[in-house]
């Protein structure tokens, strides 16, 4: 069922990861994601993976939740790894016509798969352990310097809060509308590609209409409570970095340094 999609859902808890300052978490996540791509060989990538595994366990979120978020992108993982099978050189393992699979291709495929899985798991940690409010609060703070360039930082953060807030609501709504159209005999499980695309119309149109209705209602409710943007607005919860954050930063720096070292000492997998 559509409600089973867990990507981007907060799971409350009190673990070490939950208690980190969200600003630190966002920056570390960003740096890690960059380093997942910087790592050019198995040694470096495995260092990252071990760290990610440790963080998953530390987060106290049931591992089944992480598997669920992987399931949502299973297709992408399979697609890219199969595509990568056919690239690369080395010993030919299997060939048919002009197509051949080489040892280099297999290494590529495995490498890319680990990369994508790490990427998804890592970003899941951020969204599972950080509430949407904390997340946007932190983003607003991180982006504050952009105000000098006349970027509307507060408005962007508010839009993100609202968007995140409405993800579960919209999923629920989609579920309801799908049920209602199925009750009228809509067929969404069979037919060719065009037929299936056409079958989405009875779901997408009501969904759009209700999103607009919700947007108007929300705007009205915000104005009724005198919302007027970020000017002079104070925070109920002011973010503070603690010694926990220092630990996280130091560990991260060590791991990143290790990845760079691996890159220098071992040959790269992808060419």
């Amino acid at each position, binding site marked *: 069922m559509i409600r089973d999609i867990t990507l981007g859902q907060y799971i409350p808890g009190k673990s070490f990861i939950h208690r980190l300052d969200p600003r630190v978490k966002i920056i570390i996540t960003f740096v890690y994601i960059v380093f997942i791509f910087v790592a050019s060989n198995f040694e470096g990538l495995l260092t990252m993976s071990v760290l990610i595994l440790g963080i998953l366990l530390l987060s106290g979120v049931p591992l089944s939740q992480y598997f669920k978020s992987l399931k949502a992108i299973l297709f992408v993982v399979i697609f890219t790894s199969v595509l990568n099978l056919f690239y690369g050189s080395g010993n030919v393992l299997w060939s048919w016509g002009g197509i051949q699979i080489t040892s280099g291709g297999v290494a590529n495929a495995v490498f890319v798969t680990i990369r994508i899985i790490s990427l998804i798991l890592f970003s899941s940690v951020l969204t599972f352990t950080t509430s949407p409010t904390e997340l946007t609060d932190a983003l607003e703070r991180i982006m504050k310097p952009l105000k000098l360039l006349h970027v509307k930082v507060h408005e962007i953060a508010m839009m993100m809060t609202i968007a995140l807030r409405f993800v579960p609501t919209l999923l629920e709504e989609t579920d309801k509308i799908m049920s*209602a159209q199925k009750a*009228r005999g*809509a*067929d969404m499980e069979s037919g060719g590609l065009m037929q299936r695309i056409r079958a989405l119309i*009875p779901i997408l*149109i*009501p969904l759009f209409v209700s999103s607009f209705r919700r947007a108007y209602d929300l705007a009205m409710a915000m104005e009724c409570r005198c919302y007027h943007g970020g000017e002079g607005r104070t925070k109920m919860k002011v973010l503070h970095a603690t010694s926990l954050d220092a630990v996280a930063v130091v560990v991260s720096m060590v791991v990143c340094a290790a990845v760079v070292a691996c890159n220098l000492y071992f040959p790269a997998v992808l060419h």
Partner: protein
Amino acid sequence: MAIIETKNLTYTYGQGTPFQKTAVENINIAIKQGEFIGVIGHTGSGKSTLIQQLNGLLRPTSGTVLLNGKDIWEDPKKIRSVRFKVGMVFQYPEHQLFEETVLKDIAFGPGNMGLGKDEILKRARAAAEFVGLKEELLEKSPFELSGGEKRRVAIAGVIAMDPDVLILDEPTAGLDPRGRDVLLSQIVTYHKTRHNTILLVSHSMEDIARTADRVLVMNAGHAAMFDTTENVFACDRELEKMGLRVPQITKIMAVLKAKGYPVGTALTVEQALKELIPLLGKGNRNHD
């Protein structure tokens, strides 16, 4: 023979996850052809989960739903044909409208049944008439209509499939008092003309008392009572324990009776009137 029957029907949400929750447990009910059934229950009592299993939108975790004596999940590929026989109008059904014109939207259901074009239009027009939609509205966009009219269009969309069983989940929620009365009496008229089976889910005890032959009371996932409307509304203490109540007029009559007045029970204001008028007459004569 019962048109719809459930055997040990149980539904569990999120089975095998930490959020596992049994919404409906071990329901055994049989509904006869042509009956008008009221379904009442506190929010979260499992009403919606129950009715969604009756037309195959949810597949029971265990137990079976029999339609005309046949298990509806016998062949999962044919579940769509069950949905044409058991029509379902959801809460706030106006949110599901999507077509360019009202007529096209009503025709969506019959169109999915694979009928001929003339038959589809005939049914759509007949359904529109049943719910009291004016002819000139049929070519308008459904999004231009008022809330009450949209509701009618959505209900017509299900009626147009000519289902043997019609399930309505709070069809009058959010309508003004007059809209409620009109819609409700249209549903009753529809029931009387087509002689089909209707399940009406409602939080309004007055609506249920006015329409239903029998009432199913859901409580914490169980079928707490399933009896004639009179018998169910005679148990006001049990109902109150489940967060429900009897119709106000029934309560008034019960209080009068407890005070020693020679009155019977009543489910509707009309019934109460019949009981009370002779009493008033007597009162007047005494004063004369």
